[in-house]
């Protein structure tokens, strides 16, 4: 053993690292911070390390060239032994990292951990979040398939809305006038050098501050943060009721990080790698581009904005969101930390979480995208056409052939951009339907130029049959009255 000790001493005399490491490992933290709620930051860092390692391993095979990237990914998937697994671990590691970073942020927000003196830790954390999302987006681009191509196109259209310099920004983003080889090269540089370098540096600063300022104490209702007294109170708490960080709190970090890594590996093994999808040939237009999971909510929001709101929203919302996050510790640097006495904070977090979940769910179910093949692929059930007149049958043909079905479902099949038409006759009179078909409005194109009057007549007579058997179609009340009572009676004559 003395041989090992000599070697250790030889290195220690030169590195002199034992002292700082011992300081970091054995520093006292408040006893109740050794909690399962405090494990997300270390898990995020573990995932970052996993991404670095798997990223380097993938770079051994991946070719960052627009002409070859897609092929090299397919070779990774199908020819390199376990290449598919490495790709899957990297992709799932990314999903988990984004999720864990957001959970970490929510926990820190809920526990008031951003308050004095940890404002800068939060600020750096906001930039770490942005870098993490930057990695997720640039990583999606490196998976150089159809989704990556058209996802970049969406990036171009968002960039191009910036006044004055929009065109220049687009050229900078793409490295040229179109999405091509130069684009992939610069996204490779961003994903592999620029953003990870910044990420590692900021993570080091973040962890340094956690060590220097101590782990945030468990919030207690009524224990207020005051700049004059906080440091003294915290030190008292840490030393009188504290335990060494290792092993007291660190074992939970280790267990959770291990569990997260295991979850990544299981997801990777079960679900496999993501893509690559279709080859990045923009002349193949039979594609329904969709962003990766972390960006789905943006995709949904962009579909609900009215056209006039779009550019102002795109230009201001990201700035306001980031500014809002950065402002949090400076707006509320003192006072109550406990969520029991911060109703607005709890409500704000709930609102953000629920909105995010709803928009992500909407983006996954995509009710606004037309089903491009519904008109030719989804059949009309026989029950709609039994005993139908020739005019109604003609209308059904027009309903299919003019792509109405791409946006309107019947019998649960078809697009969901417009309302389902199973019971449209109970909601609209034939005149109203005629008017709607001809003039469009809202999210419906006007078909006045594209349908002849006989076609419209046939279509409306088909639509007028779409009502439940026990529910009669809608009718124009005044016209009905005029037609049924040949001699109008004075009102006073009624009982």
């Amino acid at each position, binding site marked *: 053993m003395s041989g090992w000790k000599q070697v250790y001493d030889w290195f220690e005399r030169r590195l002199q690292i034992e002292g700082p490491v011992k300081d970091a490992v054995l520093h006292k933290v408040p006893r109740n911070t050794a909690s399962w709620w405090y494990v997300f930051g270390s898990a995020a860092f573990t995932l970052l390390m996993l991404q670095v390692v798997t990223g380097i391993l993938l770079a051994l095979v991946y070719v960052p*060239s627009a002409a070859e990237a897609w092929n090299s990914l397919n070779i990774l998937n199908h020819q390199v032994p376990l290449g598919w697994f490495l790709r899957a671990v990297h992709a799932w590691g990314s999903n988990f990292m984004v999720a864990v970073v957001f959970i970490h942020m929510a926990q820190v927000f809920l526990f008031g951990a951003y308050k004095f003196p940890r404002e800068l830790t939060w600020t750096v954390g906001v930039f770490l979040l942005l870098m993490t999302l930057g990695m997720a987006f640039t990583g999606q681009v490196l998976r150089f398939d159809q989704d990556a191509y058209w996802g970049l*196109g969406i990036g171009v259209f968002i960039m191009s809305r910036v006044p004055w310099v*929009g065109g220049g920004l687009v050229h*900078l983003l793409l490295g040229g006038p179109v999405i091509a080889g130069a684009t992939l090269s610069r996204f490779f540089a961003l994903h592999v050098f620029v953003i990870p370098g910044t990420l590692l540096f900021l993570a080091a600063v973040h962890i340094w501050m956690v060590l220097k300022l101590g782990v945030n104490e468990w919030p207690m209702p009524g224990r207020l943060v005051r700049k004059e007294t906080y440091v003294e109170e915290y030190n008292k708490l840490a030393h009188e009721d504290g335990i060494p960080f290792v092993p007291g709190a660190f074992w939970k970090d280790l267990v959770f990080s291990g569990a997260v890594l295991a979850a990544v590996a299981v997801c990777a093994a079960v679900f496999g790698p993501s893509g690559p999808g279709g080859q990045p040939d923009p002349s193949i237009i039979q594609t329904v581009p969709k962003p990766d999971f972390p960006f789905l909510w943006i995709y949904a929001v962009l579909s609900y904005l009215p056209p006039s709101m779009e*550019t102002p929203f795109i230009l201001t919302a990201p700035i306001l969101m980031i500014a809002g996050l950065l402002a949090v510790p400076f707006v509320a640097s003192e006072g109550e930390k406990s969520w029991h006495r911060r109703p607005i904070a709890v409500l704000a977090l709930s609102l953000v979480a629920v909105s995010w979940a709803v928009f992500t769910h909407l983006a996954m179910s995509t009710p606004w995208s037309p089903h491009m093949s519904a008109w030719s692929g989804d059949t009309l059930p026989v029950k709609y056409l039994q005993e139908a007149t020739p005019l109604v049958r003609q209308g059904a043909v027009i309903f299919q052939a003019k792509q109405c079905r791409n946006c309107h479902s019947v019998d649960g099949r078809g697009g969901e951009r417009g309302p389902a038409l199973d019971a449209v006759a109970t909601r609209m009179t034939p005149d109203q339907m005629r008017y709607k078909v001809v003039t469009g409005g809202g999210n419906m194109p006007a078909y006045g130029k594209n349908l002849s009057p006989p076609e419209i007549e046939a279509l409306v007579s088909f639509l007028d049959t779409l009502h439940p058997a026990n529910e009669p179609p809608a009718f124009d009340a005044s016209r009905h009255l005029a037609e049924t009572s040949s001699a109008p009676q004075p009102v006073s004559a009624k009982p």
Partner: protein
Amino acid sequence: MTMSDASDSPEKQSSGPDIVTASHQASDQESAALVSRRWLLLKAGIALNGLVGIALAVPIVRYLLAPVRKDDSYKSWVSLGDVGNFPVGETRLASYRTPWKETWDGETDNVACYVRREGSSQFTVFAINCAHLGCPVRWFPQSQLFMCPCHGGVYYADGSRASGPPERGLFTYDYKIDNGQLQINAGQMPSLSNTAKLVNIAVPAKQGPGKDGDCGCRG
């Protein structure tokens, strides 16, 4: 923790602080003039590095900004093939190789567009990109509509906006007919900052060969 030298034997190590102390004493005796001269030299060193930094920054920034150029410098006339390929009154999908290309671009150089032939020499060539977020629109000849698969933007046959989130009609290319070939002025991905300046929305599109082809139509 204190700084100490990295000698191997503990005996030598203990002599370390003495040397440090001795040098401190020596420096205390140095004249204030000498110290201020050292500070001046340090400032001179910083200034030198600053100057070299600026001198290096100029070419670096110029290199980084190299892709930022006027749209027209990226564009040139490319052929979509014989005019006869496009029947009058119909809209056809066409594709071309973007003129600004490198050998490592692969398939990304293939760009699709729609050619609508209104008369013997009257064309409208639409960019494939939806004016909302650039997704590739699809043409449905039966209903005479372009539909976007992303957010459901719809355009009429003349490219004007029909419904959905787009705030303008489809983008168009300038075109000309040369030796029976339909040529378009291409090379720049259409977006709201170049071909589609927002100020042009309400202005009627100029028709005819070689003119500004931006579609100014709006539904």
